[in-house]
């Protein structure tokens, strides 16, 4: 039996976001977990799978699942932690679907909590193995996305004002989201006047750094239909990664994302024209343009012109990042993209609800340009 639609997201929980003095990644994860099981109408004893992502400030690192499970007092049949940056949330939800389909667990909680903001995390590291690129000043999260943006500008004529369209759309949506961290609307000129960080990327091309916690609960579709909320089925899923960088000629273009997306669409039996709303991983504005091309909403190289004129804003042809994204809602490394996808399909997105949203595409990307995934969500 195909795995398509066999599992569903039945509970989502998110804490307050932003600058949360005195909180810890562990207690934020716990609060999100409590909110998610309440959202689903479950008790903690119902959770027999636990998959976690350690926060950037979690001292337990890859042993985080043990600490978290101990803290909430559960004995999962299936557990583990994964660190794949912004691709982790989607990959853990997919792992949960697979575990449920394989009979290794019935109800899986996927959990993340972090205090990157108050913890002073600056995402300043260099990539590279024994020869760190930091020796040549190639440091920080904006570096590799800067390469992607610069190459895209040279090969396709993409402009900084087109990148600004992405930032403006995300901020507009965040302004309609009372839980978002950055809610003051911005214009293309505001973007153009924001300071250069790593040319060609300006401050308003960059995502936030945030504290917060998120939990997503997945169970089999039959059980899901007996729970409190309308199930949000995972109709399609795909992943694709590259471990290469300099030896991969088109690494900067993240071509493996196309594979993740086409696998997800094929599993769902759907295509880009079926998508009503999309939550596309936005560590930097350029990433949204790449996703739009890779998903087939436009041709390669046309992502820049696609986003012009408010097309990805609410009310446009394809609303993207309707809660504000990493750029303006909160930097939960893509976890909130899944939460917003669920809310859109449930019809819970209030002022920013896309009318009759039946199909949502959610994507994740992590470890700079290397890891990617995609999921197609529909009501189950």
């Amino acid at each position, binding site marked *: 039996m195909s795995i398509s639609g066999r599992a569903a997201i039945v509970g989502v929980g998110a804490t307050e976001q932003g600058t949360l003095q005195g909180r810890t990644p562990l207690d934020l994860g716990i609060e999100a977990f409590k909110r998610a099981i309440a959202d689903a109408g479950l008790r903690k004893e119902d959770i027999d799978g636990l998959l976690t992502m350690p926060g950037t400030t979690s001292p337990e690192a890859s042993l985080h699942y043990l600490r978290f499970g101990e803290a909430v007092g559960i004995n999962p049949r299936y557990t583990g932690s994964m660190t794949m940056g912004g691709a982790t949330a989607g990959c853990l939800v997919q792992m949960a679907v697979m575990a449920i389909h394989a009979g290794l667990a019935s109800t899986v909680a996927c959990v993340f909590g972090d205090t990157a903001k108050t913890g002073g995390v*600056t995402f*300043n590291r*260099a990539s*590279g*193995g*024994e*020869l*760190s*690129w*930091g*020796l*040549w*000043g*190639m*440091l*920080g999260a904006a*570096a590799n996305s*800067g*390469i992607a943006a*610069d*190459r895209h500008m*040279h090969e396709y004529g993409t402009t900084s004002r087109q990148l600004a369209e992405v930032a403006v759309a995300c901020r507009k949506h965040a302004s309609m989201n009372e839980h978002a961290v950055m809610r003051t609307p911005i214009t293309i000129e505001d973007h153009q006047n924001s*300071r*250069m*960080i*790593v*040319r*060609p990327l300006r401050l308003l091309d960059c995502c936030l750094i945030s504290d917060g916690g998120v939990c997503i609960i997945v169970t089999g579709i039959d059980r899901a239909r007996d729970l409190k909320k309308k199930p949000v089925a995972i109709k399609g899923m795909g992943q694709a990664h590259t471990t*290469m*960088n*300099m*030896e991969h000629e088109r690494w*900067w273009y993240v071509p493996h994302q196309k594979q993740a997306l086409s696998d997800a669409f094929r599993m769902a039996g759907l295509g880009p024209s079926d998508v009503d709303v999309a939550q596309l991983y936005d560590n930097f504005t350029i990433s949204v343009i790449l996703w739009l091309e890779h998903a087939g909403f436009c041709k390669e190289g046309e992502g820049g012109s696609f986003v012009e004129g408010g097309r990805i804003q609410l009310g446009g042809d394809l609303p993207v990042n309707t809660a504000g994204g990493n750029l303006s809602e909160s930097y939960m490394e893509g976890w909130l993209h899944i939460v917003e996808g669920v809310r859109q399909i449930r019809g819970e997105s209030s002022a920013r609800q896309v009318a009759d949203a039946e199909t949502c595409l959610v994507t994740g990307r992590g470890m700079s340009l290397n890891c990617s995934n995609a999921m197609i969500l529909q009501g189950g």
Partner: protein
Amino acid sequence: MNAPTKKPAPQITALTQPFWDAASKGELRMQKCQSCGHIRFPIGPVCTACLSDKSDWVRMSGRGTVLSHLVFHRAYSPAWKDHVPYSVVMVQLPEGPRMFTDIVDLERKYIDQDLVGRTVEVLFDTVEGDVAVPRFKVAEP
């Protein structure tokens, strides 16, 4: 005025030692597979094409073409704070490998320019004792 801080020095390992030995003599060398001829970079224990662990450290011409040009206006480490704004480029070497390098541009002549497509050439910047880091400068036509 104080001299700008030295750029960082490498942590040399058994694997990377030949690269740094060559650099201290003013040579840019990379690993060429003895089995299939693939030249790999970053430095690795085996050939990324055929997994052979036999390689020779062959000398690169030291010239390359800029594929992408970034300008860092922010220092992400104290070692770079006296150097902002500085350019980092992705260079295509004619021998096959690609690498990142900062551009040595003391007069900030190229900071507002777009270096994509320009030819760059290697120089060796002593950072500590006799340890030198290969960096690139813009080749004058």
